[in-house]
Protein backbone atom coordinates (compact mmCIF):
# COMPACT_ATOMS: atom_id res chain seq x y z
CA UNK A 1 0.00 0.00 0.00
CA UNK A 2 2.67 2.41 1.09
CA UNK A 3 4.75 1.35 -1.83
CA UNK A 4 2.08 1.99 -4.35
CA UNK A 5 1.39 5.43 -2.99
CA UNK A 6 5.08 6.10 -3.10
CA UNK A 7 5.16 4.98 -6.67
CA UNK A 8 2.25 7.16 -7.62
CA UNK A 9 3.77 10.21 -6.02
CA UNK A 10 7.16 9.41 -7.44
CA UNK A 11 5.84 9.07 -10.95
CA UNK A 12 3.78 12.19 -10.51
CA UNK A 13 6.64 14.22 -9.19
CA UNK A 14 8.93 12.96 -11.88
CA UNK A 15 6.47 14.03 -14.53
CA UNK A 16 5.98 17.35 -12.87
CA UNK A 17 9.64 17.95 -12.50
CA UNK A 18 10.08 17.27 -16.17
CA UNK A 19 7.30 19.64 -17.10
CA UNK A 20 8.67 22.18 -14.69
CA UNK A 21 12.04 22.02 -16.29
CA UNK A 22 10.48 22.33 -19.68
CA UNK A 23 8.43 25.33 -18.76
CA UNK A 24 10.92 27.04 -16.48
CA UNK A 25 12.50 28.88 -19.28
CA UNK A 26 9.38 29.95 -21.10
CA UNK A 27 8.00 31.19 -17.81
CA UNK A 28 11.10 33.21 -17.17
CA UNK A 29 10.94 34.47 -20.71
CA UNK A 30 7.34 35.42 -20.38
CA UNK A 31 8.11 37.36 -17.24
CA UNK A 32 11.04 39.06 -18.82
CA UNK A 33 9.00 39.88 -21.90
CA UNK A 34 6.37 41.43 -19.74
CA UNK A 35 8.90 43.56 -17.93
CA UNK A 36 10.54 44.63 -21.13
CA UNK A 37 7.21 45.41 -22.66
CA UNK A 38 6.29 47.62 -19.72
CA UNK A 39 9.60 49.40 -19.89
CA UNK A 40 9.34 49.88 -23.61
CA UNK A 41 6.01 51.60 -23.12
CA UNK A 42 7.47 54.33 -20.95
CA UNK A 43 10.88 55.01 -22.46
CA UNK A 44 11.98 55.50 -26.06
CA UNK A 45 13.47 52.66 -28.01
CA UNK A 46 16.54 51.16 -26.39
CA UNK A 47 18.95 48.34 -26.99
CA UNK A 48 20.36 47.77 -23.53
CA UNK A 49 18.99 47.81 -20.01
CA UNK A 50 20.75 48.19 -16.73
CA UNK A 51 18.90 47.69 -13.49
CA UNK A 52 19.64 48.95 -10.04
CA UNK A 53 17.60 49.22 -6.90
CA UNK A 54 17.23 52.37 -4.83
CA UNK A 55 15.46 52.93 -1.56
CA UNK A 56 12.77 55.60 -1.65
CA UNK A 57 13.44 58.49 0.70
CA UNK A 58 10.36 57.74 2.82
CA UNK A 59 11.42 54.14 3.41
CA UNK A 60 9.63 51.01 2.30
CA UNK A 61 10.51 48.58 -0.44
CA UNK A 62 13.20 49.62 -2.83
CA UNK A 63 12.35 50.60 -6.38
CA UNK A 64 13.90 48.99 -9.40
CA UNK A 65 15.43 51.53 -11.78
CA UNK A 66 15.88 50.39 -15.33
CA UNK A 67 18.32 52.57 -17.20
CA UNK A 68 17.64 52.28 -20.90
CA UNK A 69 20.45 52.89 -23.34
CA UNK A 70 20.44 53.26 -27.04
CA UNK A 71 23.85 53.16 -28.60
CA UNK A 72 25.25 53.51 -25.10
CA UNK A 73 23.41 56.72 -24.61
CA UNK A 74 20.95 56.95 -21.74
CA UNK A 75 17.52 57.53 -23.33
CA UNK A 76 15.34 57.16 -20.29
CA UNK A 77 14.89 55.61 -16.90
CA UNK A 78 11.94 53.32 -16.20
CA UNK A 79 11.18 53.16 -12.51
CA UNK A 80 9.16 50.29 -11.14
CA UNK A 81 7.19 51.96 -8.37
CA UNK A 82 4.45 51.02 -5.95
CA UNK A 83 1.88 52.34 -3.52
CA UNK A 84 -0.09 50.72 -0.75
CA UNK A 85 -2.79 53.32 -0.71
CA UNK A 86 -4.89 51.71 -3.41
CA UNK A 87 -8.53 50.91 -2.86
CA UNK A 88 -7.71 47.25 -2.60
CA UNK A 89 -4.11 46.68 -1.87
CA UNK A 90 -0.91 47.43 -3.63
CA UNK A 91 -0.67 49.04 -7.03
CA UNK A 92 2.55 48.78 -9.00
CA UNK A 93 3.40 50.93 -11.99
CA UNK A 94 6.24 51.72 -14.31
CA UNK A 95 7.17 55.38 -14.62
CA UNK A 96 9.48 56.52 -17.37
CA UNK A 97 11.66 59.59 -16.79
CA UNK A 98 13.71 61.66 -19.08
CA UNK A 99 17.13 62.39 -17.81
CA UNK A 100 15.96 65.90 -16.91
CA UNK A 101 13.32 64.51 -14.64
CA UNK A 102 10.20 65.03 -16.78
CA UNK A 103 7.88 62.11 -17.05
CA UNK A 104 7.78 60.35 -20.40
CA UNK A 105 4.85 58.09 -19.64
CA UNK A 106 3.32 55.93 -16.96
CA UNK A 107 1.87 52.44 -17.22
CA UNK A 108 0.36 50.27 -14.53
CA UNK A 109 1.84 46.86 -13.84
CA UNK A 110 -0.43 45.26 -11.32
CA UNK A 111 -3.43 46.30 -9.30
CA UNK A 112 -6.51 44.82 -7.71
CA UNK A 113 -8.75 47.87 -8.04
CA UNK A 114 -12.40 47.43 -8.79
CA UNK A 115 -13.10 46.61 -12.40
CA UNK A 116 -15.03 49.43 -13.97
CA UNK A 117 -13.97 51.93 -11.35
CA UNK A 118 -10.37 51.81 -10.29
CA UNK A 119 -9.19 49.96 -13.35
CA UNK A 120 -9.38 53.19 -15.32
CA UNK A 121 -5.72 53.57 -14.45
CA UNK A 122 -5.09 50.91 -17.06
CA UNK A 123 -4.07 52.35 -20.39
CA UNK A 124 -6.39 50.10 -22.33
CA UNK A 125 -9.41 51.00 -20.26
CA UNK A 126 -9.24 54.75 -20.33
CA UNK A 127 -6.88 57.54 -21.27
CA UNK A 128 -6.84 58.85 -17.73
CA UNK A 129 -3.17 58.03 -17.17
CA UNK A 130 -2.19 60.01 -20.26
CA UNK A 131 -2.29 63.12 -18.10
CA UNK A 132 1.06 62.18 -16.68
CA UNK A 133 2.73 62.33 -20.06
CA UNK A 134 5.36 64.95 -20.30
CA UNK A 135 4.74 66.70 -17.00
CA UNK A 136 7.57 67.94 -14.88
CA UNK A 137 6.99 66.99 -11.27
CA UNK A 138 9.00 70.01 -10.23
CA UNK A 139 6.35 72.31 -11.56
CA UNK A 140 3.22 70.19 -11.68
CA UNK A 141 1.78 68.93 -8.40
CA UNK A 142 1.15 65.22 -8.74
CA UNK A 143 -1.95 65.25 -6.58
CA UNK A 144 -5.63 65.08 -7.48
CA UNK A 145 -7.43 68.37 -7.78
CA UNK A 146 -9.41 67.69 -4.62
CA UNK A 147 -6.09 67.74 -2.78
CA UNK A 148 -5.09 70.95 -4.50
CA UNK A 149 -3.02 69.16 -7.11
CA UNK A 150 -3.07 69.30 -10.87
CA UNK A 151 -4.31 65.82 -11.72
CA UNK A 152 -7.97 65.14 -12.56
CA UNK A 153 -9.32 62.40 -10.39
CA UNK A 154 -11.19 59.40 -11.77
CA UNK A 155 -14.88 59.91 -11.23
CA UNK A 156 -16.05 57.83 -8.31
CA UNK A 157 -12.59 56.40 -7.82
CA UNK A 158 -10.69 59.21 -6.18
CA UNK A 159 -8.97 56.78 -3.89
CA UNK A 160 -7.37 54.95 -6.77
CA UNK A 161 -6.38 58.13 -8.50
CA UNK A 162 -4.84 59.44 -5.33
CA UNK A 163 -2.95 56.21 -4.83
CA UNK A 164 -1.64 56.27 -8.36
CA UNK A 165 -0.37 59.78 -7.84
CA UNK A 166 1.30 58.57 -4.71
CA UNK A 167 3.09 55.86 -6.67
CA UNK A 168 4.25 58.27 -9.33
CA UNK A 169 5.38 60.74 -6.72
CA UNK A 170 7.33 58.03 -4.96
CA UNK A 171 9.07 57.17 -8.20
CA UNK A 172 9.94 60.81 -8.75
CA UNK A 173 11.13 61.37 -5.19
CA UNK A 174 13.43 58.39 -5.40
CA UNK A 175 14.56 59.42 -8.83
CA UNK A 176 15.21 62.91 -7.61
CA UNK A 177 17.18 61.91 -4.56
CA UNK A 178 19.29 59.19 -6.17
CA UNK A 179 19.62 60.14 -9.79
CA UNK A 180 18.84 63.78 -10.36
CA UNK A 181 20.89 64.95 -7.41
CA UNK A 182 23.81 62.98 -8.74
CA UNK A 183 23.38 64.34 -12.20
CA UNK A 184 23.33 67.81 -10.81
CA UNK A 185 26.44 67.23 -8.74
CA UNK A 186 28.32 65.60 -11.56
CA UNK A 187 27.00 68.04 -14.05
CA UNK A 188 26.07 65.35 -16.47
CA UNK A 189 23.86 62.32 -16.83
CA UNK A 190 24.73 59.63 -14.34
CA UNK A 191 26.04 56.26 -15.42
Amino acid at each position, binding site marked *: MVLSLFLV*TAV*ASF*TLATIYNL*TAEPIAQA*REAKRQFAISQVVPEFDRLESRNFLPPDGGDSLEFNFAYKNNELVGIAVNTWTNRGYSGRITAMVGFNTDGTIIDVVHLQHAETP*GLGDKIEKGKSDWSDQFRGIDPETTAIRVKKDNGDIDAITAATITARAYCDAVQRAYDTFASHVLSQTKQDGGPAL
Partner: protein
Amino acid sequence: MKQWRNFTKGFIKDNPVFILLLGLCPALGVTTSAFNGFGMGLATTFVLLGSNTVVSIIKNVIPNKVRIPSFIVIIASFVTIVQLTMEAYMPELFDALGLFIPLIVVNCLVMGRAEAFGSKNNIGSSIVDAMGMGLGFTLALTMLGGVREILGAYSIFGIQLIPGVTDGMLVFVLAPGAFIGMGYLIILFNYLKKKTA
Protein backbone atom coordinates in the same frame (compact mmCIF):
# COMPACT_ATOMS: atom_id res chain seq x y z
CA MET B 1 -25.62 6.42 -29.38
CA LYS B 2 -25.11 5.80 -25.72
CA GLN B 3 -21.71 7.42 -25.92
CA TRP B 4 -23.26 10.38 -27.64
CA ARG B 5 -25.76 10.76 -24.89
CA ASN B 6 -22.97 10.40 -22.35
CA PHE B 7 -21.19 13.15 -24.14
CA THR B 8 -24.04 15.59 -24.44
CA LYS B 9 -25.65 15.11 -21.06
CA GLY B 10 -23.27 17.57 -19.48
CA PHE B 11 -24.49 20.37 -21.72
CA ILE B 12 -27.96 20.80 -20.35
CA LYS B 13 -29.49 17.79 -18.63
CA ASP B 14 -26.63 17.21 -16.22
CA ASN B 15 -24.86 20.49 -16.60
CA PRO B 16 -22.25 20.34 -13.85
CA VAL B 17 -22.67 23.96 -12.85
CA PHE B 18 -26.28 24.90 -13.39
CA ILE B 19 -27.95 21.58 -12.70
CA LEU B 20 -25.56 19.64 -10.49
CA LEU B 21 -24.20 22.74 -8.74
CA LEU B 22 -20.65 21.45 -8.74
CA GLY B 23 -17.57 23.60 -8.90
CA LEU B 24 -19.40 26.75 -8.06
CA CYS B 25 -16.39 28.62 -6.76
CA PRO B 26 -14.54 28.92 -10.06
CA ALA B 27 -17.85 29.38 -11.83
CA LEU B 28 -18.50 32.46 -9.75
CA GLY B 29 -14.96 33.58 -9.21
CA VAL B 30 -13.43 33.78 -12.66
CA THR B 31 -16.40 34.66 -14.81
CA THR B 32 -15.88 38.38 -14.94
CA SER B 33 -15.68 38.01 -18.68
CA ALA B 34 -16.63 35.43 -21.25
CA PHE B 35 -13.02 34.84 -22.16
CA ASN B 36 -11.93 34.16 -18.60
CA GLY B 37 -14.80 31.74 -18.19
CA PHE B 38 -13.84 30.02 -21.38
CA GLY B 39 -10.22 29.73 -20.38
CA MET B 40 -11.06 28.35 -16.97
CA GLY B 41 -13.46 25.91 -18.57
CA LEU B 42 -10.82 24.60 -20.90
CA ALA B 43 -8.25 24.32 -18.15
CA THR B 44 -10.68 22.33 -16.06
CA THR B 45 -11.61 20.19 -19.02
CA PHE B 46 -7.99 19.38 -19.54
CA VAL B 47 -7.52 18.31 -15.94
CA LEU B 48 -10.72 16.34 -16.05
CA LEU B 49 -9.71 14.60 -19.19
CA GLY B 50 -6.23 13.81 -17.98
CA SER B 51 -7.20 12.57 -14.58
CA ASN B 52 -10.18 10.59 -15.80
CA THR B 53 -8.02 8.85 -18.35
CA VAL B 54 -5.16 8.08 -16.02
CA VAL B 55 -7.48 6.95 -13.27
CA SER B 56 -9.28 4.58 -15.57
CA ILE B 57 -5.96 3.18 -16.72
CA ILE B 58 -4.49 2.52 -13.32
CA LYS B 59 -7.70 1.78 -11.46
CA ASN B 60 -6.86 -1.90 -11.14
CA VAL B 61 -3.32 -1.43 -9.92
CA ILE B 62 -4.07 0.84 -7.00
CA PRO B 63 -4.96 -0.74 -3.69
CA ASN B 64 -8.23 0.49 -2.26
CA LYS B 65 -6.82 2.00 0.89
CA VAL B 66 -4.78 4.58 -0.96
CA ARG B 67 -7.21 5.10 -3.76
CA ILE B 68 -8.27 8.57 -2.80
CA PRO B 69 -4.76 9.90 -2.05
CA SER B 70 -3.58 8.51 -5.37
CA PHE B 71 -6.40 10.19 -7.22
CA ILE B 72 -5.59 13.41 -5.49
CA VAL B 73 -1.98 13.15 -6.52
CA ILE B 74 -2.94 12.44 -10.11
CA ILE B 75 -5.36 15.34 -10.26
CA ALA B 76 -2.93 17.68 -8.58
CA SER B 77 -0.30 16.73 -11.10
CA PHE B 78 -2.51 17.68 -13.99
CA VAL B 79 -3.41 20.90 -12.28
CA THR B 80 0.24 21.73 -11.86
CA ILE B 81 0.82 20.96 -15.50
CA VAL B 82 -1.92 23.38 -16.48
CA GLN B 83 -0.55 25.92 -14.06
CA LEU B 84 2.95 25.75 -15.43
CA THR B 85 2.03 25.73 -19.09
CA MET B 86 -0.43 28.50 -18.69
CA GLU B 87 2.06 30.64 -16.87
CA ALA B 88 4.56 30.01 -19.60
CA TYR B 89 2.43 30.47 -22.65
CA MET B 90 -0.63 32.46 -21.60
CA PRO B 91 0.58 34.73 -18.82
CA GLU B 92 -2.34 37.14 -19.19
CA LEU B 93 -4.97 34.51 -18.66
CA PHE B 94 -2.89 33.04 -15.87
CA ASP B 95 -2.98 36.37 -14.08
CA ALA B 96 -6.69 36.77 -14.61
CA LEU B 97 -7.61 33.36 -13.27
CA GLY B 98 -5.18 33.65 -10.40
CA LEU B 99 -5.91 31.58 -7.37
CA PHE B 100 -8.56 29.55 -9.10
CA ILE B 101 -6.09 27.59 -11.20
CA PRO B 102 -4.50 25.73 -8.29
CA LEU B 103 -7.98 25.40 -6.86
CA ILE B 104 -9.06 23.20 -9.75
CA VAL B 105 -7.54 20.51 -7.62
CA VAL B 106 -10.35 20.81 -5.10
CA ASN B 107 -13.10 21.23 -7.66
CA CYS B 108 -15.74 18.74 -6.70
CA LEU B 109 -16.45 18.08 -10.34
CA VAL B 110 -12.99 16.78 -11.07
CA MET B 111 -12.73 14.58 -8.03
CA GLY B 112 -16.28 13.37 -8.35
CA ARG B 113 -15.90 12.34 -11.96
CA ALA B 114 -12.59 10.62 -11.36
CA GLU B 115 -14.19 8.58 -8.64
CA ALA B 116 -17.62 8.07 -10.04
CA PHE B 117 -16.73 7.45 -13.61
CA GLY B 118 -13.02 7.09 -14.23
CA SER B 119 -12.51 4.48 -11.58
CA LYS B 120 -15.31 2.30 -12.87
CA ASN B 121 -15.27 2.58 -16.63
CA ASN B 122 -12.94 1.86 -19.47
CA ILE B 123 -10.75 4.47 -21.05
CA GLY B 124 -13.06 5.19 -23.94
CA SER B 125 -16.11 6.01 -21.90
CA SER B 126 -14.01 7.88 -19.39
CA ILE B 127 -12.69 10.16 -22.07
CA VAL B 128 -16.14 10.74 -23.48
CA ASP B 129 -17.51 11.45 -20.05
CA ALA B 130 -14.70 13.83 -19.20
CA MET B 131 -15.07 15.66 -22.49
CA GLY B 132 -18.81 15.96 -22.08
CA MET B 133 -18.68 17.16 -18.52
CA GLY B 134 -15.74 19.41 -19.21
CA LEU B 135 -17.41 21.04 -22.16
CA GLY B 136 -20.60 21.42 -20.17
CA PHE B 137 -18.54 23.16 -17.54
CA THR B 138 -16.90 25.33 -20.17
CA LEU B 139 -20.25 26.18 -21.68
CA ALA B 140 -21.59 27.17 -18.29
CA LEU B 141 -18.63 29.34 -17.40
CA THR B 142 -18.58 30.99 -20.79
CA MET B 143 -22.28 31.73 -20.58
CA LEU B 144 -22.06 33.16 -17.11
CA GLY B 145 -19.00 35.12 -18.08
CA GLY B 146 -20.77 36.32 -21.19
CA VAL B 147 -23.84 37.48 -19.32
CA ARG B 148 -21.74 39.27 -16.77
CA GLU B 149 -19.57 40.84 -19.41
CA ILE B 150 -22.50 42.00 -21.49
CA LEU B 151 -24.32 43.54 -18.57
CA GLY B 152 -21.30 44.69 -16.67
CA ALA B 153 -19.16 46.12 -19.43
CA TYR B 154 -21.43 46.17 -22.49
CA SER B 155 -18.99 43.95 -24.31
CA ILE B 156 -18.58 40.32 -25.21
CA PHE B 157 -15.22 38.56 -25.60
CA GLY B 158 -13.71 41.98 -25.27
CA ILE B 159 -15.65 43.47 -28.17
CA GLN B 160 -17.53 46.60 -27.22
CA LEU B 161 -21.19 46.40 -28.04
CA ILE B 162 -21.86 50.11 -27.78
CA PRO B 163 -18.93 52.03 -29.16
CA GLY B 164 -17.54 54.49 -26.70
CA VAL B 165 -19.45 53.19 -23.71
CA THR B 166 -17.24 51.10 -21.49
CA ASP B 167 -19.01 51.19 -18.15
CA GLY B 168 -21.95 48.86 -17.81
CA MET B 169 -23.76 47.97 -14.67
CA LEU B 170 -20.79 47.46 -12.47
CA VAL B 171 -22.46 45.05 -10.09
CA PHE B 172 -22.27 42.38 -12.68
CA VAL B 173 -18.53 42.53 -12.76
CA LEU B 174 -18.42 42.45 -8.98
CA ALA B 175 -19.28 39.69 -6.55
CA PRO B 176 -23.04 40.23 -6.22
CA GLY B 177 -23.48 40.07 -9.97
CA ALA B 178 -21.91 36.64 -10.05
CA PHE B 179 -24.44 35.25 -7.61
CA ILE B 180 -27.35 36.99 -9.23
CA GLY B 181 -26.37 36.02 -12.76
CA MET B 182 -25.87 32.45 -11.65
CA GLY B 183 -29.25 32.43 -9.93
CA TYR B 184 -31.10 33.45 -13.04
CA LEU B 185 -29.09 31.16 -15.31
CA ILE B 186 -29.99 28.23 -13.09
CA ILE B 187 -33.63 29.08 -13.62
CA LEU B 188 -33.02 29.16 -17.36
CA PHE B 189 -31.29 25.79 -17.32
CA ASN B 190 -33.95 24.18 -15.19
CA TYR B 191 -36.43 25.39 -17.75
CA LEU B 192 -34.32 24.11 -20.65
CA LYS B 193 -33.87 20.79 -18.92
CA LYS B 194 -37.60 20.43 -18.57
CA LYS B 195 -38.10 21.45 -22.17
CA THR B 196 -35.61 18.96 -23.53
CA ALA B 197 -36.56 16.13 -21.20
